[in-house]
């Protein structure tokens, strides 16, 4: 009965939209099957958390007030008075962190599988930009509850932007909307968070997904031989159901975290209060924060923080343009040195993040 109803709806739509090619594409699409196929799920998980972000973000928008006077109280209202408001806010905060984590793992697996090599360079560039956008979402969203910790962390974060040579001053004032972190900063962060970044992210995600559908999943160099001997896994229903199962597990983890460890509200920001002890940015910025903290005041006569920022800038550029720099992979040859550099970078990030939480 249900099946015949579904068929009738499909037939009705097909007559008007010509869905046959899409149906054929889905039927024929397959996903490479090899020992690293599990890595493909991180991209799907990132997309899943992004969708949760959009859904919970829209609900939060119904009550959130983006002014210095009302922001904190409106978040308190959401958490205490609005039905399931605490859950929506907690889901939004936890999902944001899980999205950055999933995106980071996705990027790392893509990097080590050399999935960025020709012809998938554009997929890498859009993915790398999306990771930066996810961090931008985190940075701008962190300030929105207008609590003490976020206020001072934003001051520190925008101070760092101000140290960038030549454009630093402009960047600082552009981000803050003035000399210091004020209500003007909150308003523009809100604008970035709910309009500019989502618009850019949606466009890039669509392009990223389209590129993946056009080119199919990349197979790591080491698995190319094994992959040619089997036909791969049919996308529908095998891979699709696996993806759904992964999303269900991700949702269960998210629900457990949001309920068992509700996101704290903290104290309302007070620009005239002394900075509280132990100001830290979001965990994904801690490795940069800690490195800059450990650098000496001057390195070869140049300000230590500036040297650190320049080094991070150069490393970021190298990472972004890895499809161009990794000539061996573009020739389908393994590049052991790049793998070692990737491992060293991951170790550096892990150690600095750990130190950021352990060191006083």
């Amino acid at each position, binding site marked *: 009965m249900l099946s015949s109803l579904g068929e009738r709806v499909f037939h009705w739509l097909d007559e008007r939209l010509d869905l046959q090619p899409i149906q054929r594409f889905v039927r024929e699409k397959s996903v490479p099957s090899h020992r690293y196929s599990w890595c493909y799920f991180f991209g799907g998980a990132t997309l899943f958390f992004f969708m949760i972000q959009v859904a919970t973000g829209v609900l939060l928008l119904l009550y959130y007030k983006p002014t210095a006077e009302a922001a904190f109280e409106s978040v*308190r209202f959401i*958490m*205490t008075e609005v039905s399931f408001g*605490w*859950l929506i806010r907690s889901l939004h905060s936890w999902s944001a962190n899980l999205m950055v984590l999933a995106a980071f793992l996705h990027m790392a697996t893509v990097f080590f599988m050399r999935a960025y090599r020709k012809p998938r360079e554009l997929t890498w560039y859009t993915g790398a930009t999306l990771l930066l956008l996810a961090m931008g979402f985190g940075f701008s969203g962190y300030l929105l509850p207008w609590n003490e910790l976020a206020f001072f962390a934003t001051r520190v974060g925008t101070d760092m932007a101000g140290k960038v040579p030549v454009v630093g001053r402009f960047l600082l004032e552009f981000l803050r909307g003035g000399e210091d972190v004020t209500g003007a900063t909150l308003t523009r962060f809100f604008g970035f968070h709910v309009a500019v970044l989502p618009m850019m992210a949606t466009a890039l995600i669509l392009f990223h997904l389209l590129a993946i559908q056009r080119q199919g999943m990349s197979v790591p160099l080491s698995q190319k031989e094994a992959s040619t001997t089997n036909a791969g896994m049919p996308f529908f*229903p*095998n891979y699709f*159901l*696996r993806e*759904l*199962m992964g999303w*269900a*597990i991700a*949702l*269960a983890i998210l*629900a*457990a975290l949001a*309920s*068992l*460890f*509700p996101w*704290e*509200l903290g104290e309302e920001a007070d620009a005239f209060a002394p900075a509280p002890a132990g100001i830290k940015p979001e965990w994904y910025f801690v490795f940069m924060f800690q490195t800059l903290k450990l650098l000496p005041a001057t390195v070869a006569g140049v300000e230590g923080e500036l040297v650190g920022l320049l080094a991070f800038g150069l490393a970021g550029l190298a990472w972004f343009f890895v499809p161009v720099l990794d000539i061996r992979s573009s020739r389908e040859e393994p590049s052991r040195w790049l793998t070692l550099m990737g491992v060293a970078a991951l170790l550096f990030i892990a150690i600095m993040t750990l130190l950021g939480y352990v060191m006083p």
Partner: protein
Amino acid sequence: MMRAGLTFLLMTFAGVALGQDNCLDCHRELEDPAALAMSEDVHAQASVSCADCHGGDRTIETEGDYELAMDPNKGFIGVPDPGDIPQLCGRCHSDASYMHRFDPNLSVDQVAQYWTSVHGQRLREGATDVAQCASCHHAHGVVSAKDPRSPVYPTRIPETCGACHADPEHMAAYGIPTDQLSEYRAGVHGRALFDRGDLGAPTCNSCHGNHGAAPPGVTSVSLVCGTCHGVQKELFAASPHQEAFDAIDEPECESCHGNHNIEAPTDDFVGVGDEAICMTCHGEGEPAYGVAATVHEEISNLKGAMAAAREVVDRAARAGMEVSEAELVLIDANQTLVESRNLVHAFAVEPLREKVEEGLALATTAREMGVAALAEVDYRRKGLALSVFFILLLAVGLYLKIRQIEERE
């Protein structure tokens, strides 16, 4: 020639006009501590010279014959006699029009007040070891009382007074105790001043006065304490104790709280227990015994209710709940506890009971908010368990479906 003479004359007069002080110059060369201290002195900064107090002629170039400058015929008096010092300082400090030039808000009644003090009276009687202006402010190197280096800056006043009053040898002739300083240090006021650096904490002069220093009489103790503790003073004045204390000439606040060593009061001060001060005068069977017992019980009830509410609210906060509303109610409840403790000074049950009931209602509200938050925690956990169960069930169902499909293939 004429021009050279004119220049010499101009330079000479300009030097005197600009404050040339030969006394200071010579005594500095002699490394006289009094002269060296004048570089920081408020008087020197206001162009008051040595000769203005000591007499003599500061303008004379003595060239080795110092007696010319320190000639009694020129008013030189040398070191002033202690008995003359108040009058000497008062020449300027009691002159309103003169002092107005330096600070229009400066009082000019210090000397008049001083003569009313015990110190002033003794000085008039001929005692030379009593405090006069220089004893507390120093003679040279005098700095403003607002300067932390001043011996009369709030944190230094106890030591300044204690220099004489904590010295048994000095006080032997007067037959007064010398433990005031050590007692003050141990009391709440001393701890506030020394440990917390609270400049608002009362020091010796806050109760005894400064220039007109005298011990407060029995009748004025509550007035002195009441300058800060106004609510308690008013409650006491309307209480049955006022008349009773007046009748037996008993100092008011001091009888229960002490004077120099004022202990931080506890709720056990009132009541019928071992530490209860009430029981030093009252005994079982008196109506006051019942009042003391009830007052203690009422306050204990409020504290107990607040502790119970605090425990529940803290538990909810630890469970991750937003309890700021309950915290605000608890702050209000704490305010009623403070007011209830003040009402002890009415020594009556009714006004206290009314305030305690107000506090109990607030404590109950806070507790109910905490209980509701804990119930919400329970509800959320159950909801979470149920939702995670269904989500995982979906995952298992998907897994089984995948296996079924792949086995069929």
